[in-house]
C-alpha cells in the first residue's frame, strides 16, 4: 500500500527525492515502532521512518530522546480520522507531518491541514500522500501542504503546473490570510 519507490515527490514546488518511509498503522517489522521496541533512526535504505500517530504517541519519549542524541528527524502521519490536536504540543519537534488521503474525494485532510497550520501554528513540512494527483494540488497547497507525494502512475512533473491553476482566490486559507474583499481596492490602485 505504501511503496515509496512508486511515488514522486514535489517539495517546495520542485521534484525532490523522498527520504522518508511510511510505517503503516500497525506494527511493521522494519519500523518496529508500534511494538515497543526502541526504533532505529532509518530503515536499511537510509530512509527515515514516518510514523503513524499511534506509534508516535506510544513512543514519544524515546523518539524525542533519539532526536536529541542522534539528531535524526521526526515525522508523523495522520489518517483522516486522526485528531491533529493530539500533536499540538509536539509540533516544534516534528520535521514532517504527512496527511493520508485514502481516496482523493475524502476531503477530511484539508481540514486537518488547515487546523495544523492555522490553529496550531505548525511550520514544518506538511505532506499530502495517498491518492494524490495533479487536480487536487491547487486546493491542497491553499490549505497549507507544501509537499505532495504524487501517486503511482501519475506524472509529477506535469502535476507541478496545476499549482498555478488560478491567479487569485476569493476566500482566506492558509496561503492567504487576507480575503480578496479586503484586497480589491488596493489591487485596483496598484
Amino acid at each position, binding site marked *: 500500500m505504501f511503496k515509496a519507490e512508486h511515488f514522486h515527490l514535489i517539495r517546495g514546488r520542485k521534484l525532490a527525492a523522498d527520504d522518508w518511509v511510511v510505517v503503516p498503522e500497525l506494527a511493521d517489522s522494519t519500523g518496529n515502532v508500534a511494538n515497543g521496541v526502541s526504533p532505529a533512526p532509518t530503515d536499511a535504505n537510509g530512509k527515515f521512518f514516518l510514523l503513524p500517530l499511534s506509534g508516535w504517541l506510544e513512543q514519544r519519549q524515546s523518539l524525542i530522546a533519539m532526536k536529541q542524541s542522534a539528531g535524526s528527524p521526526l515525522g508523523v502521519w495522520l489518517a483522516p480520522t486522526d485528531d491533529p490536536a493530539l500533536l499540538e504540543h509536539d509540533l516544534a519537534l516534528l520535521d514532517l507531518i504527512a496527511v493520508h488521503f485514502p481516496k*482523493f*474525494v*475524502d*476531503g*477530511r485532510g*484539508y*481540514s*486537518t491541514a*488547515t487546523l495544523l497550520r492555522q*490553529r496550531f501554528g505548525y511550520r514544518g513540512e506538511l505532506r499530502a500522500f495517498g491518492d494524490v*494527483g495533479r*487536480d487536487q494540488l*491547487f*486546493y*491542497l497547497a*491553499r*490549505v497549507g501542504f507544501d509537499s505532495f507525494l504524487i501517486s503511482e502512475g501519475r506524472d509529477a512533473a506535469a502535476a507541478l503546473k*496545476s499549482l498555478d*491553476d*488560478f*491567479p*487569485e*482566490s*476569493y*476566500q*482566506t*486559507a492558509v496561503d492567504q*490570510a*487576507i*480575503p*480578496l*474583499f*479586503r484586497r*480589491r*481596492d488596493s*489591487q*485596483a490602485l496598484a
Partner: protein
Amino acid sequence: MYIYDHHDHAIVKARVAQFRDQTERYQRGELSDDEFRPLRLQNGLYVQRHAPMLRVAIPYGMLSSAQLRRLARIVRTYDRGYGHFTTRQNLQLNWPKLEAAPDILAELAEVEMHAIQTSGNCIRNITTDHFAGVAADEVVDPRPWAEILRQWSTFHPEFAYLPRKFKIAVSGTTQDRAAILVHDIGLQLVVDATGGTGFSVYVGGGLGRTPLIGKKIRDFLPWKHVLTYCEAILRVYNRFGRRDNMYKARIKILVKALGTDEFARQVESEWAHLKDSPATLTEAEVTRVASQFSAPAYAALPIVDISHQTKLIEDRAFARWVERNVHTHRVAGYAAVSLSLKSPGLAPGDATDVQMDGVAGLADAYSFGEIRVSHEQNLVLADVRQADLFDVWQAARTLGLASPTIGLLTDMIVCPGGDFCSLANAKSLPIAAAIQDRFNELDYLHDIGDLSLNISGCMNSCGHHHLAGIGILGVDKNGAEWYQITIGGRQGNAAQIGDVIGRSFAAKDVPDVIENLIETYLSQRLEGEMFVETVDRIGLQPFRDRAYEKAAPKHTPEMENV
C-alpha cells in the same frame, strides 16, 4: 446585478482553462472515469441516460437580458433548442456533448456566468427569494449576502471534497420563499432591536431519503460574522460527517446524530477560533456588493393605474392572469410578473431558445433588463409598470408563457425524471402531462385554489415532493414504475413534510387518484380553507378512503415503505 471586476473575470476564465485541460486529458485517457468524475461534476457536467447533462449556475436566480440571450444561443447551438430551469434556480442542458462543455463554459464566462459547483460534494449555488429586492414583506435584500456567500464558497479549498453536496439558501422576507428550512444551511436575515442586521441560522434541513426540517442553531448572528460562522459549520461537517454511506452523509444526519445542541456547541467552539479573523466581513465590502443591487430608476407612479384597471374590467382572461401571475411590489405603480413555464406541451420548467430570447426582450422593454428564476421553475419579471401589464400579458401569451396558473395545481414542480435522469426510478414528465391534461379547466383550477403538486422521479427528491400539498414520488417495484402519494406538505415558514397516504399506484391511475383527493377536499372544505388546511383539520383518512375506494387495482403490491 453584480458586475464582475477583473478579479472575478480572471477567476472564472482560469476555471474554463483548467476544465478544458482536464477534459482533454480525460479524452486522451490520462484521467480515469473515477478521477474525472468529481472534476466534471464540480463543473456541472453529469453523465445522463442519453447524453451528458450540463447544469449552468444562475446565482440566486438572477439573470440579465444579455445573459438570458446567451443561454438561448447556447441551447440553440450546443443543444436541442431548449433548457430546463430547476428548483435551485439553475438551468440544465439535456443534450450537450462532452467535448463541447469547455466551449459552453467559455461562452458563459463571456457574460459573467459559469457552471461552477453546480454538482459534486461541494457548496452549491446559493439560492434565495425570486422576489428579492421588490417583495413587500422584505426585511433585508438577500441578494448581496447571496453574492458574498457565492464568492466565499467558490473554489473554497477546504470544502471541495465534502461528505456530500451542500446547499445554502438565504431569505430576507418574513414569509420564506427560498425553502431555507430544507437546506443544509438556511440563513434568515433579521434586524435586531438596535437596528443591526444579522442572521438566524438553521442547519440540517433537507429532503431526499430522510426528509428533515432545519434546526435553528443561532437566533442572531451579526452580519459581519456570516462567513466565519459558515466556515465553522462546514469544518465540523467536513471532519465529522459520515463518509461510509452516501445516503447518510448529508449534514442533517450528523446534526440528528449529535443532537442539535451538541452540534451547535461544536460549531460555536470552532467558531471561537475564527471569530474576528480577517475573514470577517467589512462594511466596505457589503456596501460595494450591495451597491450593485440598488433599486433601478423607478418612475414616480400613482398607486393605481387607471388604464390597467379598465383592462381588468374589460378582459376576463387578462384579469384571471393578473389574479394568479401578477404580484404586489414594494414600489407604487409597479408589479412583479410570473411567466409560467408550466404550459401544456412542454415539460414543467422547460423553455425554448425562442422563449428565452422573447423573455429577454420583454425584460429590456418592461423590466429594467433583468429576469429572475423562481425555485418553482418559473421566470419572473420583477419590475413591471402596472400600465404595461396588458402588453406584457399579450406578449407572454404569444410566447406560450401566460398560463394563468401560478400557485395552482398545474403549477407543478417536476424533476426531469426517468426520461432523462439516470438516477430516477420512474418517469415524472408523463405523469405531469397526464395531470395537466386532466386538470385543464381553468375555472375548476381556480376554484381549487392554492395547491402545490410536486413530482420527483426518485428519493433524491429534486421535485420537492415532500413539501407539496400533493406530492408524487416515483418508486421502483420489481422493475415497474409505481407512484407513492403524500399529502399535507408545505414550504415556507411552517415547512412541513407531507404524509404518505398508503400503497403506491400505477401510472395510469395517478390522475384518477389526484382527482379523488381534490374531490375529497372540495366536498369537505370550509369557506376559504386551502387544501393543506383541510388536510390538517380532517386528517388523512377521508382522503385515503376516497383514493383507494375507486382506484385500487386488484394486483396492488403490499404497502410501500421506501
